[in-house]
């Protein structure tokens, strides 16, 4: 078992889905899982009110990768878009799957 891995989680308006996945892959994520989500945050209405729901994107990545993704998402999207991001350590087996 190996605990150098993190679950990198992003909840954002649906619009950003493809961009965020691309960003994650660029930083080295090998896979991801997406669930539909609705929510409320600090912002008032956002386009997703009309266009559809939020997405929650999760990717099991290496520690360092998570840090880089977290930073890039904050830099690029926090100002203008409805998005939050966080990460937490997880234990996996057969770590080669995520590298």
């Amino acid at each position, binding site marked *: 078992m190996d605990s150098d891995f993190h679950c990198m989680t992003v909840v954002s308006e649906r*619009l950003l889905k493809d961009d965020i996945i691309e960003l994650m892959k660029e930083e080295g994520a090998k896979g991801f899982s997406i669930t539909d989500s609705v929510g409320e945050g600090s912002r008032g*209405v956002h*386009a997703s009110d*009309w*266009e559809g729901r939020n997405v929650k994107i999760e990717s099991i990545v290496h520690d360092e990768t998570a840090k880089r993704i977290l930073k890039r998402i904050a830099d690029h999207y926090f100002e*203008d878009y409805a998005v939050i991001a966080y990460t937490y350590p997880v234990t996996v087996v057969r770590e080669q799957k995520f590298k």
Partner: protein
Amino acid sequence: MDALLSNFASPVVLAFALGIIARLVRSDLELPRPIYQGLSIYLLLAIGLKGGVALSQTPLSQFALPGLATLGLGILTPLTSYAILRYLGKIDRVNASAIAAHYGSVSAVTFIAAISYLNALGQTAEGFMPTLVAILEVPGIIVALLIPYRSNKGKGSIKKALHEVLTGSSIVLLVGGVVIGAIAGEAQFESVSPFFVAGFQGALVLFLLELGMTTAKRLGDLKKVGPFLIVFGIAVPIIHGVLATWIGLQVGLSVAGASVLAAMVSSGSYIAAPAAVRIALPQANPTYYLTASLGITFPFNITLGIPLYVEVATRFAAWM
């Protein structure tokens, strides 16, 4: 007057009202999202198909002028909207063009409501009207979005926004439906017509029930947007609508056709435009543009606007 009253007694408008009331009394009524999406695919494809079948029977000569006029209106209306927002409303450049993009485009449901209203009056617009919806949907958005980009105020990607609007589901379904309808022709269309024609009005009732609930959420934002935008959301449709009526009659449309064109031109998009604007101008505030187009102009048009345009078109036609 009678016609106006009869509009308020139409199941479609009443369902819209029921949707608003359901939200106001905090009912748990909810049309599941997939149903809503399925209905909107159905409605768009249906008007495309019917338009295509009609187009297959229209000589190009008859269609050319109205097509050009629609294109022209699609370029003009975002500019007038922008000017009014910017210089009368003192709204900043980014938000002004965001809102202008919505009024340059078109609300397919307003179009459908106009068609239905005229049917109830026993009038029929030209069969190629859905093609005009497709022509009107895109240019206005592009024109409006180019304004801030020319002055380097755009932070998002206009290329992505363009792709979004050109390949958006409403364009694909409308244009696709028109092409299918035109190729298939009347005989082949017959087998699918019970589904796409007979069921249409009823499906519209369900759709407007949901739209009423969505609108009700917007109504709560009315105070946030301030009085200028409320006046804008009623006055500008009237201006654009009356103009479109006049031009429609000039290019040879029937009274019904000109009225429907007016409904289209005056309407504000709330599907294609918000998506494109969110991409191209992420810093614009969605509360403004969604509330204006969906919370003010849409309810105005389907209750008072459409009967008004028909009335105006009838009088214009009498003068001419």
